[in-house]
Each structure stands twice: as C-alpha cells, then as structure tokens.
C-alpha cells in the first residue's frame, strides 16, 4: 500500500467526518460537551489543507503530518489522542518506506494503539475510542492472511461492534466519566469516530 492509498484513506475519513459531524457532536452532547464532530471536522479540514500544501512522499511522512496537524488544530481530548495515533503510525512505518506491507501496517496500528493508551491511560471497557481501536487492530491482524480487503472489512466490523459495545458501559475516562452511571446507555463519541475511520479504510481498500 503506497502513499496515495493512504492519502485516499485520509480523504475518506475527512469526508465521513464532514458527513457525520452533527451525529458525532450529538453523541458528545449526550455524555460530553457537544464538540466532538466539530473538533474532528476542524482537524481533518486542516489535514486536507496540509496534505494539499505539501504532499508527503511516503506513508510514514503522510501519517506524521496528519498526526501533527491534528495535534496542532483540534485541541480537546481527541486532538492529542488521534494526533498520537497517526503520528505513531507514521513513526513506526518510518519516513523511508514507500510501500507498506499489510503486516507492517497492522504492527504500526498496534504501536499506535499502545501509544494512545500510554497517553490517555485508558484500557478497554473504559468507554473510550480504545474500545473501537483495540478490537479493530486485533481483527485486522487476525484477518491479515486473507488479504487487505478482508482484513479491512474485519477491522471495520470489529470497530463498529466495539463502538456499539460502549453503549451499556459506564465511562471511566474522559468527560463522560463525570456522569457516573448516567453515562450508561450512550455510545461513546470517540469510539464512534474510530469506527468511522475503519469504515473509511474499508472503503479506501475496496476501490
């Protein structure tokens, strides 16, 4: 998978975020502060601009630019967290590699998961984006032998299921944790946006 493939993924994410902006914000209104959609949309709009201004040469450079841009433009919890995911992805892939093998991508995603967990100290079950990211990374790794299309589909499914599975959980991290038991019964906005990113990966892979 080359730079243009991953650029297409990011483009898919940006479009999906724009489309789902209000939905994500409404999820955040229920158990947070009603800005998640606006945050990510602002971030990916800036990412689009940054990529257009200086198109990166390698997937690694691309992801580092995406991550840094998110950190620089989003703010909130999701800025540093998603910024870290993409930056770590880029750093693990390295600035040199032009073509990324599926296995290397899966390993880089795993490193990204670790990095975001280190930063945010969330574990699975805390009702955060980790609840969608972790199963997605696992499914992608497990589905690898069946090729990228299958692997991406499995990851997208796992992320979506992970996001849905946050509904009955009580939040233990982030803003929703302030609500205590009242956080139960709502989907976590960050998990929802992570699911949307893996759906975008599947879409990019299906092209």
């Amino acid at each position, binding site marked *: 998978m080359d730079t243009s493939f991953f650029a297409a993924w990011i483009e898919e994410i940006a479009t999906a975020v724009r489309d789902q902006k209000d939905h994500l914000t409404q999820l955040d209104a229920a158990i947070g*502060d*009603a800005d998640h959609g*606006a945050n990510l949309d602002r971030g990916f709009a800036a990412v689009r601009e940054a990529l257009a201004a200086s198109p990166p040469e390698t997937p690694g450079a691309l992801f580092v630019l995406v991550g840094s841009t998110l950190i*620089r433009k989003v703010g909130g919890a999701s*800025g540093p967290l998603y910024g870290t995911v993409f930056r770590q992805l880029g750093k693990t892939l390295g600035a040199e590699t032009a073509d990324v093998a599926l296995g290397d991508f899966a390993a880089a995603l795993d490193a990204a998961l670790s990095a975001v967990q280190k930063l945010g100290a969330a574990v699975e079950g805390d009702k955060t984006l980790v609840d969608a990211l972790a199963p997605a990374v696992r499914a992608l790794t497990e589905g690898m032998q069946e090729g990228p299309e299958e692997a991406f589909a499995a990851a997208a499914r796992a992320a979506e299921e992970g996001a849905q599975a946050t509904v009955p959980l009580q939040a233990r*991290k*982030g803003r929703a944790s*302030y609500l205590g038991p009242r956080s139960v019964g709502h989907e976590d906005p960050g998990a929802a946006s992570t699911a949307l990113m893996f759906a975008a990966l599947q879409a990019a892979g299906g092209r």
Partner: protein
Amino acid sequence: MKKLINGTDTVVADALRGMAAAHPGLRVDIENRIVFRASGPRPGKVGLVSGGGSGHEPLHGGFVGYGMLDAACPGEVFTSPVPDQMIEATKGVDGGAGVLHIVKNYTGDVLNFQMAAELCEDEGVEVTSVLINDDVAVQDSLYTAGRRGTGATLFVEKIAGALAESGAPLSEVAQIATDVNARSRSFGVALSACTVPAAGKPTFELNDNEIELGIGIHGEPGRTRAPHAEAREIVRIAMDAINDDMPLSGETLVMVNGMGGTPLLEQYIVFAEVAAYLAEKGATPARSLVGNYVTSLEMQGFSVTVCRLTDELARLWDAPVETPGLRWGR
C-alpha cells in the same frame, strides 16, 4: 439557536477582536489566539499562563493583567486550546524565571498542556504545571478522569498571580497554587442547558420542574437530576457536598458564580443562603465574589466555590489586581 454571532466559525476570533478593542491593557494576538498583557514580560517575574475552551468568559482572557495571568490561550468553545498556542504564550511571557501553567483537570486540557510543556522545556523554558481539580461533584477515583477544575481556577490565578508579582520563584508560586487548589472545593447546579454554537442545539433538555446537580462548566449534564426547589434547599445540597468533602470552618473565600444566564439578583439570593450555611458551620465569608466569573455560555445556574483562607492567602487575595474581570487596588 439564537446568538449574537456572525457565524459559528468565527465566534472566538470575533470575540477576541472585541477584547482587543475594549482593553488597551491587553495585547491580543488574534491570529494565534493568545491574550497577553500589553506590558510584556517582566524580567525576573514568574510568568503565569492558563487557557481552556472558550465559553467560560471572563475566564481566562479576562484575568490577564497585573497581579493575575500573563497570558491566556482560548480554545474553541468548550474545547481545550492546542499546544501551539500554549508554547507561543509560554515563550511570550517568560521573563527568565520560568512559567507556571495553570491547567484545569480535563483530559483535553491536561494532554495539550502536557505536550506544550514538554516542547517548552526542549526549548529551554522552565515550566511547572499545576492541576486544578476542585469539583466535588466528581468522585476522584480510578473510575473517573478525576475531579474537574472549575471555580478554584480563579482563586489560584489571583493568589498565585499576586505572589508572582512580588518576585517569588517558580517553586513557591507553584506551591501556593497547589495549596489554594487543595484548600478549595466547588459544586455547580444548572437550571437550563446551554448551546454550543457549532452544535446548534442545547446539550441537554430539562423539564420545567427539574434541575441538574453537580454540573461542570461545559454544558454537560450533572451527576443527578432533581426536582427544582427553593434557592435555600438547592444551596444546602451544594454546600453539604462541599462540607462533606472539606469540613468548613474559620475564614473562607467564597465565590457564588453565575453560569452566564442567571441574573445577579438571583446570585445574591444564593449568596445569602451560602452565607447563612457558613454561619451554621461556624465559618465566615471573609472575602467574597458574586457574579459571572467562570461561565458556561448562557446556562442558567450557579456554582459555589469555597477556599479555606490562611492569613497569607487573604493577604495575597487582597493584593492589587488589574484585569478586565477582576480589579482592585489600582
């Protein structure tokens, strides 16, 4: 949604233009979204930087000036600012004695300030961060993101700002900030929700006879919903929560803070009940503030913050301050 704005995208920038026009004592970097003192850094003085989402005005930009902050970084509405702003602000206020970051305990604020602090240290600016977490409505445990920072932020900014103005070193300024936070507790109540401009509708709906108890300052619902009651009863719930966590006695600094949509008339009614409660416990409101200081846009409701004073804290509270939001002694 009915707001006095030009568009949901330009809310923060337009408001900063207004601050720039209204306050010659401030230098507002609209491009980078930083509110500085117009006078610039004072050599040898510890710099104080805070910041957070917009929508809490006058916090933080309104507390930039002599005796309080050196710079504030406003984020989007209810969204913590980004590290770039904090780095720029920190470098801009450094007078060689280091910089204190006053950070309200929210995941976003903490992570962004943390990244900024690391990069500032890389560039040779000494930074110490103090975390504000005074909101007793949140259980401080492994099972939450920890207590939120709310009203005590103003107390910390004022008192640490006064100490910094006197030329104290970073370690002492950071220590007193930590002390003020440790001696302060808050509890908030909402009578209505508020609407984030970009979201376009209220973050929650309340019936005519319901209130939210234990709210933060981001328009989020609280810990519980309760029937609306007399001011006296609502204040008792809030004060009991504070007193259970930190038994009240002696001289206190008390703020009754309007959330943005509560008339001052009602805030005084609340203050009367707070003062009566304190008297019951043998405490006194030796210093006090009543007004809109740490708001949630147009939310109706209030928060009460109590800090147990020492002589030193009272003296630093009384020290001159000259900011748009708080001013005395000059």
